[in-house]
């Protein structure tokens, strides 16, 4: 916190200096011009051109925005419970948040990445990582729901994630915080040499998208920060930035910033596949959750997996280290796959490595030493060029597909446009304030859609009406079709966004589901017709097989429930029409409402504690008779002999 205040103060000072130069008016004119308003105006009933999936940061979720309007469409619950949608509250989705540490109802969601085919966005899935309790989630874009979460063992601070390879062969995860692997009760002072990093490759089934932790590579105890895949010629490689090559375990602010250069680790995952095939792995005992939501049973299951295949990073030809100044953060690959950009966050320059030069340096064994058996390539032999004095504190780079890179500079608070190949700076625009990530739709793929860049800022300050000490997070939209970038729009975002993934809307809308088919509902407790409606007692457990349609529940009167019962309401929405969800909630239930889509079944549990007659009702306005959509449950004393009975309109 102190650090933030301090850096804000520094920033403010530099801003004041900056303002006093009198440049602000001319640089900011874009936003004042009427053409900016026209460019972001999407008329009522019209659609946005792009979807933006913006990380929800410490909210643990993933938000869906329209670009260029900046309108929020949906917050997809991923790692955090969401009472609005019963995510993590209803019986069906509770298993999605299971981990080896038990039920974890929150995470810090970071880097969304859209699945790719041949290096281009294909719009099937978004992957996003949970940083705190290491996990990767998959969101199915036909339903905009999280359908799979896999925990990553031997990992802590899953930050260099969830980036996909060119054909979504793998989604990767990496340790930001190295730890003893396997975990052990040792002194923190013994970090050096005893703590390790791991880089995980989670395979994605090309047919059903199923994730499986294929293998892990054990690495030196650095901090693995960000990653991006090779593409084109460099397909088959994954690049991870590292810092703390000093292997410090305390006061990292100082101690992890000693070395002039850290590394980008180039991992040859095709080589890893060969080693796996040859059996050169060890099988380590592990314990991690694999949670899958089934679209037909509308129910998630959680399975604990017990082992993982591990490769040693020092296996010949598997990993090479590219020296990169100065504590590189973002690690970005241009659309051709030739250039790997290291955004040295404590530097003023950008370091760009050449894939061709890297291969030639490997072939000619131009090594500068090694780290725990992993060859370090000679800096000069892999360097393609430097974008000099581009700004202060480069963090992340995206590409427009027209030969330009766009890099955010946190300390100098700006986006800088530069030319790939000549490394000259072409344009710079200020951000309000302290930009972190940026996103061009497809900007880290073979085929970017270079029309807009979205800057996600870390500090908001005075950009919106004040809302007490906590203010909204802020994104800014720039038009990048001209030579000069033009600021078009500020819009608020949720949590603290770390990265985003954008995609042309038409790559998603065609596959977007409208309902769930009742005849495909395989939920164990579904009542897909009114003939299936019943109430069944099994000792103290009572199962209510309930239906809902505009505008009644069946049954809506239930008697014979007793204090001390555990009542499961399994509620099926019989509607088969677009946008007719119903909700249900029960007075005193220690859980959230259910919000049930057409054709879907969901379950909440109610444990009545008091004798009486208690109402339930529909929480989502569904028709002119929505207010009539209600019912009663009679609760008798525990000793009562009243038989179960139920009905509707009798």
């Amino acid at each position: 916190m102190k650090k933030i205040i301090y850096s804000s103060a520094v920033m403010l000072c530099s801003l004041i200096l900056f303002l006093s130069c009198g440049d602000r008016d001319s640089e900011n004119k874009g936003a004042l011009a009427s053409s900016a308003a026209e460019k972001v105006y999407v008329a009522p009933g019209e659609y946005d051109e792009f979807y933006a999936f913006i990380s929800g940061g410490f909210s643990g979720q993933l938000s869906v925005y329209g670009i260029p309007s900046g309108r929020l469409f949906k917050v997809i619950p991923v790692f955090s419970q969401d009472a609005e949608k019963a995510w993590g509250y209803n019986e069906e989705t509770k298993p999605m948040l299971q981990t080896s540490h038990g039920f974890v109802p929150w995470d810090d969601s970071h880097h969304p990445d859209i699945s790719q085919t041949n290096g281009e966005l294909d719009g099937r899935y978004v992957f996003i990582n949970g940083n705190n309790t290491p996990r990767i989630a998959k969101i199915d874009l036909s339903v905009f729901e999280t359908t799979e979460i896999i925990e990553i063992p031997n990992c802590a601070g899953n930050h260099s994630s969830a980036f996909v390879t060119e054909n979504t062969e793998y989604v990767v995860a990496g340790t930001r915080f190295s730890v003893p692997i396997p975990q052990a009760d040792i002194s923190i002072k013994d970090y050096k040499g005893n703590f390790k990093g791991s880089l995980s490759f989670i395979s994605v089934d090309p047919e059903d998208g199923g994730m499986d932790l294929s293998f892990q590579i054990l690495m030196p105890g650095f901090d693995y920060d960000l990653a991006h895949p090779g593409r084109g010629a460099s397909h088959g490689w994954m690049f991870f930035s590292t810092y703390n090559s000093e292997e410090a375990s305390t006061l990292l602010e100082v101690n992890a910033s000693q070395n002039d250069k850290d590394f980008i680790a180039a991992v040859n995952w095709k080589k890893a596949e060969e080693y796996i095939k040859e059996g050169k792995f060890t099988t380590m005992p592990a314990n991690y959750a694999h949670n899958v939501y089934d679209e037909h049973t509308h129910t998630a299951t959680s399975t604990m997996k017990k082992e993982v295949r591990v490769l040693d990073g020092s296996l010949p030809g598997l990993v090479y280290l590219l020296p990169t100044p100065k504590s590189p953060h973002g690690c970005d690959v241009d659309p051709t796959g030739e250039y790997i950009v290291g955004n040295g966050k404590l530097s003023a320059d950008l370091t760009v490595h050449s894939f061709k030069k890297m291969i030639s340096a490997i072939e000619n064994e131009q090594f500068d030493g090694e780290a725990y058996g992993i060859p370090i390539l000679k800096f000069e032999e892999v360097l393609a060029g430097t974008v000099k004095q581009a700004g202060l504190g480069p963090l992340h780079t995206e590409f427009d597909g027209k030969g330009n890179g766009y890099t955010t500079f946190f300390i100098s608070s700006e986006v800088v446009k530069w030319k790939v190949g000549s490394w000259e700076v072409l344009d710079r625009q200020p951000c309000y304030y302290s930009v972190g990530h940026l996103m061009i739709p497809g900007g880290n793929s073979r085929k970017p859609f270079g029309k807009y860049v979205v800057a996600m800022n870390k500090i908001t300050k005075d950009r919106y009406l004040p809302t007490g000490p906590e203010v909204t997070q802020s994104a800014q939209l720039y038009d990048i079709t001209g030579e000069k970038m033009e600021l078009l729009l500020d819009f608020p975002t949720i949590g603290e966004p770390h990265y985003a993934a954008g995609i042309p809307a038409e790559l998603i809308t065609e596959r977007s589901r409208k309902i769930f088919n009742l005849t495909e509902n395989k939920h164990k407790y579904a009542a897909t017709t009114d003939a299936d409606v019943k109430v069944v007692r099994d000792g103290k457990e009572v199962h209510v097989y309930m239906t809902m349609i505009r505008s009644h529940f069946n049954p809506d009167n239930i008697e014979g429930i007793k204090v001390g019962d555990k009542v499961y309401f399994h509620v099926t929405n019989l509607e088969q029409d677009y946008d007719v969800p119903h909700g249900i909630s029960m007075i005193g239930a220690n859980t959230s409402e259910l919000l049930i889509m057409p054709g879907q079944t969901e379950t909440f549990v109610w444990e009545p504690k008091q004798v009486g007659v208690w109402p339930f009702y529909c929480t989502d306005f569904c028709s002119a008779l929505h207010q009539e959509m209600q019912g009663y449950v009679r609760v008798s004393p525990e000793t009562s002999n009243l038989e179960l009975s139920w009905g509707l309109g009798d």
Partner: protein
Amino acid sequence: MGLLLVSLLLFAACGGKTEEKKDGFNVERQKQESTTSNPEAETDRVKASELVDLKNKGVGGITKVELPTEIDQAMAAEGEAIFKQYCMACHRVGKKFIGPAPNGILKRRSPEWIMNMILHPEQMVKEDPIAKDLLIEFNGSPMANQGLSEEQARAILEYFRTLEE
């Protein structure tokens, strides 16, 4: 609101047995009806659910349905299954429920009207005079669009032909 609360309290205070309460409500409502509406006009007007109009084909795209004299029993059985799955939540055979009972519907409506109502309920309640009146008669409870195919709707129609009036 305050007044209402007071009168409610008074009412509760006076209330004896629950049976008597029910009677009280009934009497009051009957009184209101007899004073405000014209009994003659009421009897003249046929309810939308009882109105016979075999010419109106409705709106929504179904313009011609041929009904062979023989009922296709296999199709009717299929229609019954679809009806039970998608319609029974609101329509019960032989009983007015959320919506009207389907018994004898072919004596009152054209086959085209029935299929349009199943397939395009939103358009029907906006544009078709009978459907509009039905919506009012059934308390504004909307006919749900269950996303059925034309074939499925046709099978339901065949099932309706087997129902006794």
